[in-house]
């Protein structure tokens, strides 16, 4: 299988603290990969390097053969772990904003997803609940026909109904030609959608592999494995 993301000896330091410590990781094209770890394990730092927001201290990151930059931003659709839309925007404004910004944005897909999420185009961002904001952000990110989707904590802090809608939207959008990298600490809710999982602890890769193979080898679901690894 072809690797769409290659990470070599990646280290990121903030002064003396190492947020990422010599990470090596390949992500195959067409896979849904879960990056799992508690708060402060380095998940968001890793994602910010992949999306070109932060620079690595050492090592190399290649996305479809390129270092993070203009070329990779055109093919990576990124859901940050907090709202990225302005409060004054209506949902329609947000759609127009994305349409202007990204050449791969599919407006019709956005409207379909908004209907599915039961979001009304005339609503203002500052009138939306936390769950609705999350659904709107995800709608915009999934409406790009990107090669790679990077979703940072897509279901954190939303109610079970919104969570199910978000999972449905992610699964519905999945296809063999796109790759997804999803961080979460809500392992139980999301583990069934991962092909592969990566456990991050204190900036290091503790464990990685095919989710089903891990279940078979360890005789446990990923959630229980996660508790075993991080619960000590």
């Amino acid at each position, binding site marked *: 299988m072809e690797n769409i993301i290659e990470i070599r000896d990646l280290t990121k330091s903030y002064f003396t603290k190492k947020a990422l410590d010599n990470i090596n990781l390949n992500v195959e094209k067409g896979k*849904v990969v879960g990056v799992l770890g508690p708060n402060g394990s380095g998940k968001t730092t890793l994602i910010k390097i992949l999306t070109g927001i932060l620079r690595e201290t050492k090592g190399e990151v290649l996305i479809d053969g390129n270092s993070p930059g203009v070329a990779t931003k055109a093919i990576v659709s990124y859901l940050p772990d907090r709202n990225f839309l302005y409060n004054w925007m209506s949902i329609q404004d947000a759609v127009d904003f994305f349409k202007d910004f990204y050449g791969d944005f599919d407006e019709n897909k956005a409207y379909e997803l908004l209907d599915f999420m039961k979001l009304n185009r005339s609503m203002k961002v500052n009138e939306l609940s936390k769950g609705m904001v999350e659904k709107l952000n995800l709608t915009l990110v999934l409406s790009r026909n990107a090669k790679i989707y990077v979703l940072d904590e897509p279901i954190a802090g939303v109610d079970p109904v919104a969570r199910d809608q978000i999972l449905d939207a992610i699964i519905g959008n999945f296809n063999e030609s796109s790759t997804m990298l999803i961080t979460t600490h809500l392992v139980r809710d999301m583990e069934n*959608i991962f092909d592969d999982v990566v456990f991050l602890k204190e900036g290091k890769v503790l464990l990685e592999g095919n989710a089903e193979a891990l279940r078979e080898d360890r*005789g446990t679901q990923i959630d229980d494995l996660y508790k075993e690894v991080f619960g000590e």
Partner: protein
Amino acid sequence: MFFNENLPIYIQIMNMVKKRIVIKELKEGEKLPSVRELSTELKVNPNTIQRSYQELEREDLVFTQRGMGTFVTEDIDVIDNLKKTMALGLVDSFIKDMESLGFSIGEISEIINNRAKEG
């Protein structure tokens, strides 16, 4: 849907489909839900569903028609055999549990017979 047994998800989905076939919720020759439909219903990665269907096909319980989908076998004998195999599986695990409580095979069958008489 949460999968609780300590088994890979694809095997748990196979068992679920097998049960649906045995209780005739899915009849012989009937079309299974598409990979995408079942993936959405169970909120499971489509690759996992695909693997379940492939393994079910390897066991001759379902067959695939190109461009049409996956169908339950039309061979009633295969389904009868599946039912027997599943029954034996349940009985075996029951006997194992009973033996771990210290019952002999003779005692176990006596308990069952008495239970059957009571209705």
